[in-house]
């Protein structure tokens, strides 16, 4: 990348609100596993005469979002129609908030390379999502599923105040954490609960350059890569004396590049007009006060808590990203309990990050597993030298998945062959056999060649199907050979 251009990045993010039903209808809002066109009714279907009615919970969550962004919500906001024709938009317009949105202002703060950065929020508005279209290959048609039509979104628009791909990624991640911890969204990125559009432009002076918009990025990594790609693409164009075209682009994950998409209509082409079906929203300041008093703890709070437990920054961030308190797993309580009991907290974090959290990601029902006793028993076994690190992970996974295994952990571990043989007398007998059948190696060890010890321990491990504690075996081998 040429350093002569200064990149400027602004991000629009669509956050799917955590409601049971849609923004303007009583249809279910969880389209993740629903069969096509089952979460629909006459309102989402855009039938003439259907009357949309605003979902009270969306107002509650918008207030939470405002408070998480450090700003009071607007007491008065309105709904508008944004007109365009596309097969996934049954009404022929999207219901959104145009000139009087529910949030104006606010900020997102994040730390990048030890430096505190602040990005100002321009606005955030409530709007209904469109349906989902798919395009079967080699067919003359597309298919539309309206389960998502009417899903409540909060579109959060940042000021163009980021200047690198890394900053864009850090902003996206911090916004994600804020919205998840505030309980505004479930934050299921895989299912598009947060989608980012990045606006990138380059300039050689104080004037902003022409920008491209890359739409529908659904991971922090994609945000970072798309921004980096656009900076490179645009600076190559400018270097060649060409100009950047203002256009909408899409990120192609397979090709790792952005590609030009259909040209977008101008704002006045959308023919915005106040929606006559939807009276304005007036938020009662007393209700804001109530929502404020019920606000969950935000990431900055948990960062302080985790750092007071002596966790490293990267461990804290991984735990934060996995969700400390917005699931029922209550990792924080667990960590606190470990700390207060004088147990090894770092070991616990290691298991949470490497075993527990990835497992919960694949099966959310595992959130409900009873962890407190489980981890205390596991750490007991580890400290007694009975579990290797690989087997510890296997045992934790088994115990999280099966309450039977968790109930009688030590027995389960023994039956499953996960325990190490640290019992010296039993192990000593096996080692005697190994030494008897490997005389050459024994001589080498006696002659001071430590390499041969490794070979003998390998034999012991093979004979015990990996259940011997290698450290204990090593001590026994050394003792037995010195005695010879």
């Amino acid at each position, binding site marked *: 990348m040429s350093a002569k251009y200064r990149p400027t990045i602004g991000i629009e993010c669509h956050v799917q609100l955590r*409601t*049971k*039903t849609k923004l303007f*209808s*009583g*249809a*279910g809002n969880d389209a993740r596993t629903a*069969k*096509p*066109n*089952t979460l*629909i*009714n*006459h*309102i989402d*279907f855009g*039938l003439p005469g259907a009357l949309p*009615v*605003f*979902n*009270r*919970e969306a*107002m509650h969550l918008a207030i939470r979002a405002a408070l998480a962004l450090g700003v009071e919500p607007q007491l008065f906001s*309105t709904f508008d129609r944004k*007109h*365009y*024709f*596309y*097969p996934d938009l049954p009404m022929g317009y999207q219901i959104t908030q145009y000139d009087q949105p529910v949030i104006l202002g606010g900020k997102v703060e994040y730390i990048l390379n030890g430096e505190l950065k602040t990005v100002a929020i321009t606005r955030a508005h409530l709007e209904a999502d469109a349906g989902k*279209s*798919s*395009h079967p290959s080699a*067919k*003359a*048609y*597309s*298919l*539309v*599923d*309206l389960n998502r039509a009417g899903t409540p979104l909060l579109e959060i628009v940042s000021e163009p105040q980021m200047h690198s791909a890394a900053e864009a990624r850090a902003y996206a991640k911090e916004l994600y954490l804020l919205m998840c911890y505030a309980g505004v969204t479930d934050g299921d990125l895989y299912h598009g609960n947060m989608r980012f559009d990045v606006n990138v432009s380059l300039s050689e002076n104080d004037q902003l350059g022409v920008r491209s918009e890359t739409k529908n990025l659904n991971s922090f990594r994609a945000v970072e890569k798309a921004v980096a790609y656009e900076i490179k693409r645009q600076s190559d164009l400018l270097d060649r004396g060409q100009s950047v075209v203002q256009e909408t682009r899409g990120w192609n994950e397979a090709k790792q590049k952005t590609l030009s998409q259909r040209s977008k*209509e101008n704002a006045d*082409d959308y*023919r915005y007009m*106040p929606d*006559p079906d*939807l*009276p*304005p*929203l*007036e938020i009662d300041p007393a209700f804001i006060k109530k929502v404020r008093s019920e606000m969950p703890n935000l990431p900055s709070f948990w960062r302080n808590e985790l750092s007071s437990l002596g966790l490293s920054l990267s461990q804290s961030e991984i735990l934060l990203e996995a969700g400390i308190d917005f699931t029922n797993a209550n990792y924080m309580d667990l960590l606190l309990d470990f700390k207060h009991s004088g147990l090894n907290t770092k070991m616990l974090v290691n298991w949470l990050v490497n075993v527990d959290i990835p497992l919960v990601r694949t099966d959310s029902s595992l959130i409900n597993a009873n962890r407190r006793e489980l981890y205390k028993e596991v750490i007991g076994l580890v400290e007694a030298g009975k579990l290797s690190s690989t087997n510890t992970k296997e045992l934790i996974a088994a115990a999280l998945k099966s309450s039977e295994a968790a109930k009688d952990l030590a027995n389960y571990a023994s039956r499953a062959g996960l325990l190490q043989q640290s019992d010296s007398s039993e192990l000593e007998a096996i080692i005697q056999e190994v030494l008897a059948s490997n005389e050459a190696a024994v001589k080498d060890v006696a002659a001071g060649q430590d390499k041969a010890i490794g070979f003998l321990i390998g034999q012991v491990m093979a004979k015990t199907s990996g259940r011997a504690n290698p450290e204990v075996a090593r001590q026994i081998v050394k003792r037995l050979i010195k005695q010879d």
Partner: protein
Amino acid sequence: MARLSKDDVLRLAHLARIELSEEEVSEFLIELNEVLAYVQQLQSSDTEGIRETNQVNALTNVMRDDQLIDYGYPPSELLKNLPAVLDDQIQVKRMVE
């Protein structure tokens, strides 16, 4: 008084994704200008000191609780209104290349 031009009509037709013949364009040009002239009577109203509003019915906060509602229109019935359905999805002209 502002008047619509032929280009305005063509642009509106494009945004509405409808095709108009030459005759239709001339026809709509007259009709739309008549509609516009009718609505433009509002411009002569004295609005001095009157607060801007989006609503004439003075309602605010018409809301419902976040609960599932059975409106009595099963999806299968709604899908029957469509010209083409494939595997419970709405079949439309291909949108992408």
